[in-house]
């Protein structure tokens, strides 16, 4: 009886869902306590970026520029010039798109020590629609020289990447989702920049995902296992610099690669993997993400399923590769 109860609890914990913004906000407060350079700039995003507690604890290192993203990014450059390590925290859709030239010039070209925390990226805003979705941010950020891009998969990795960001030199884009996810990493997980994490071994097919899609890729691997297919699952949380070695290794050792992400696949993680494969080890692949389209109306969960950014979608794509279907 006791044993069954413990198992039940463990099962419940496995399924518990987390908002990664909580982990990021907590990490920022912890970092600020130990490092006087840590500062925050928001664009009226006090609630959406979960910065109420930070503001209360560190008001002197907290700037609210109002609804003004171009200024926000410039202010980040100026703070870094003055020796601070600023975190620009706001909805990814506005922070990247509205201030794109500032991100290019003031951060990437300038090699400024600024971190962009793009909140509620992808289709997290669901029914609010394409104006509030940030499905383009991966392509936009990835094309910028000097920009480092990290898409954490769960609260553990979110906190870890935040801590890593303090050691990093140069501009960085962190994509923080509000879509509830379960933990895919143990609490002892250590983030390493540019290294994919093998979450599951397998030599039939490879699933490469990041962000909120990682837990779905594990579900796909479970489904494939039931069909006798062993899928390797890579969490590619660092999109830039991409882990070329893991990608080529997967292409050599498995029969094909499926990428899955909550973004436009062209230019995003899928594009990054395809570029490596085309040049270094041409292999069969499927790219799951948004095709060349804006999303229709629907909740985030609905939209992920709608575009096949789901266990079912990945399972189907993996089966095509394994069965040598076109």
């Amino acid at each position: 009886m006791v044993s069954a109860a413990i198992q039940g609890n463990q099962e419940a914990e496995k399924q518990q869902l987390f908002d990664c913004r909580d982990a990021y906000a907590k990490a920022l407060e912890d970092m600020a306590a130990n490092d006087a350079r840590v500062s925050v700039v928001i664009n009226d995003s006090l609630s959406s970026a979960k910065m109420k507690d930070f503001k209360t604890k560190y008001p002197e290192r907290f700037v609210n520029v109002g609804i003004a993203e171009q200024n926000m990014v410039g202010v980040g450059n100026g703070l870094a010039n003055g020796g601070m390590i600023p975190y620009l925290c706001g909805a990814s859709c506005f922070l990247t798109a509205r201030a794109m030239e500032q991100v290019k010039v003031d951060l990437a070209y300038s090699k400024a020590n600024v971190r962009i925390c793009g909140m509620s990226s992808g289709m997290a805003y669901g029914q609010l629609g394409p104006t509030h979705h940030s499905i383009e941010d991966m392509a936009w950020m990835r094309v910028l020289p000097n920009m480092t891009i990290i898409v954490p998969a769960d609260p553990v990795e979110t906190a870890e990447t935040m801590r890593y960001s303090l050691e990093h030199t140069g501009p960085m884009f962190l994509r923080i989702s509000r879509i509830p996810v379960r933990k895919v990493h143990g609490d002892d997980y250590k983030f390493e920049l540019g290294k994919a994490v093998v979450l599951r071994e397998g030599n039939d097919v490879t699933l490469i995902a990041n962000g909120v899609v990682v837990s779905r890729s594990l579900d796909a691997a479970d489904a494939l296992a039931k069909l006798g297919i062993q899928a390797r699952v890579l969490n590619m949380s660092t999109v830039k610099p991409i882990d070329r070695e893991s990608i080529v290794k997967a292409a050599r050792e498995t029969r094909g690669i499926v990428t899955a992400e909550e973004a436009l696949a062209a230019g995003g993680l899928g594009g990054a993997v395809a570029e490596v494969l085309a040049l270094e080890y041409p292999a069969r692949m499927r790219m799951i993400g948004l095709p060349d389209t804006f999303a229709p109306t629907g909740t985030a969960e609905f939209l992920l399923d709608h575009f096949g950014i789901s266990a079912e979608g990945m399972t189907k794509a993996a089966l095509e590769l394994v069965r040598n279907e076109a």
Partner: protein
Amino acid sequence: MKQTTQEQLNGPKEHAAWLSAKANWIRLSAMTMTNHARLGHTGGDLSSADILATLYMGQVLKVDPGRPLWPQRDRFVMSKGHCSGAFYSTLALRGFFPLSQLKTFMDPLSMLNGHPDRNKLAGVEANTGPLGHGLPIAVGMALAARMRKESWRVFVLVGDGELQEGSNWEAAMCAQQYELDNLIVIVDRNRIQQGDFTESTICMEPLADRWASFRFEVKEVDGHDHLALLQTFASLPVVTGKPTCLIAKTIKGKGVSFAENKPAWHHGVPTKEQLDQASRELGVEVTW
């Protein structure tokens, strides 16, 4: 670090005359660079030369060419980065890099890009060129001084046409909200932008009222009067708790008769003959 020159010891009028000669050298140096590269922005180089000379040679800015990244330095942001000819000439004159480097302006692989790059050249604080970037950056620098409890000041030189970029007004709202009295915006009010006069393009007046309505303390001076510029810079902050806007009334192409107040000289390139004429009119020679 503070250099005391013979000219300064001689009194304010002599000092102004000395600064004027330095500014004219900057003018001719910038035109020589533009002649060399066959590219450049002569009109704005000439209108901003007196402001740059006063800031750097008049010992307004607390900077140290020997330690360009000295943490407590004053920050100067050349928001009108297209006037790199005047800016680079000023930095070299102040000793941030050898004068001979000016010869490489826009050459292949030169550190002297058409627009300044802080990662290539000592003394450059911000990568500018696209307009409307400098003021937001300057606001961040001023906020950083406050966060670090440091006393550095931030000077940013913007063009008047540049103020048509909305990002400036986002930054202005932020500066007043945070009461950044360690920030001074200098407007090079030469009344000409790339294609035409500012007032025939997008009217900038009443410019002083606009800045005042954004709760800046506004000063208007002759941007070619070194004493007036020095006096204003010596009185900062003009009002405690308020950022300052100095509208420097200037003449585009100032000091060279054929370029003065002519929109075509926004990015006009002087010929060798025109350089010689400019040298005679400015009363200086450039031999780097």
